[in-house]
């Protein structure tokens, strides 16, 4: 199984730990970054995880940022992605089994690394168990109108990165 994983600069060391953890378990891992602690922006990496999973390059995805909220919003805004943001194993398994979730998100400043390992293991090992009810629900979620620009356009954020570099965004 191939797993795409992404993070922002707040939790790079946790993502790096999970990359090694998953490789030791035998998963093929696509690490989309970020790779260091330099301040960057979570939608860049959420979009990359989403594009990898939606295209079939990866089977499932993992997203981690401080709370998990930002990066898991961005991955869910990629067409074809159904991501859950969790702080417990039960919700992760439910989302995989009953909502056919294909990405699991967590907060690296919210959940400890032991819980993160447990959540990811349980999510990757669970299987979708389609029922007429779950199939209907998934079809409705997938039918919400959205464009697919984030799936293919690697330059979708260029204008914002340019403005960031020019100092437009400041505290």
């Amino acid at each position: 199984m191939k797993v795409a994983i992404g993070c922002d600069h707040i939790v790079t060391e946790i993502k790096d730990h999970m990359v090694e953890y998953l490789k030791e378990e035998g998963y093929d891992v696509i690490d989309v970054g970020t790779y260091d602690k330099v301040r960057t922006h979570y939608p860049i990496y959420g979009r990359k995880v989403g594009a990898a999973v939606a295209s079939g390059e990866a089977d499932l995805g993992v997203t981690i940022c401080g709370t998990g909220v930002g990066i898991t919003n961005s991955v869910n805004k990629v067409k074809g992605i159904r991501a859950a943001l969790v702080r417990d194993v039960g919700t992760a398994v439910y989302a995989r089994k009953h909502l056919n979730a294909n990405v699991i998100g967590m907060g690296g400043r919210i959940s400890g690394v032991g819980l993160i390992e447990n959540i990811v293991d349980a999510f990757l090992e669970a299987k979708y168990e389609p029922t007429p009810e779950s199939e209907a629900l998934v079809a409705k979620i997938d039918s919400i109108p959205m464009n697919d620009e984030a799936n293919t356009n690697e330059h979708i954020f260029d204008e914002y990165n340019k403005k960031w570099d020019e100092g437009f965004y400041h505290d």
Partner: protein
Amino acid sequence: MKVIIGADAKGYALKEHLKNYLTDKGYDVVDKTPEKDLDLFESASRVAKAIQQGEGDRGIAIDEYGAGSFMVATKYKGVICAETSDEHSSKMTRSHNNASMITLGSGIVSERLAEGCADAFIENEYAGGRHQVRVDMLNRMC
């Protein structure tokens, strides 16, 4: 402060509890799901669309786990949503993400924890500044 709230069948009781709790605190609470038998697509969509159209300041959507409502809400352009089961995430998502919605799982959080998440989400404001580049990126998507 106007709070839009909604729930599916399994979130109905917690929604009623939070509605009373927030109303007693003086908030203007709009219940988008008076029915008891909705699915989470319908309930979360009603809250997300109301938020998208500027009908309220904050949205809260409830189902059994919170995960399905989160999947639904984040698919609406301009809606930033946190699936939460702790007060800190509920606070930080206002401060850093400018989230306009949270989702809660009635099977995951207790009444007290749901109150704490709702309080933290409603009482905190967006910090802006450097965080705005990420919010602009999110709003560019879907």
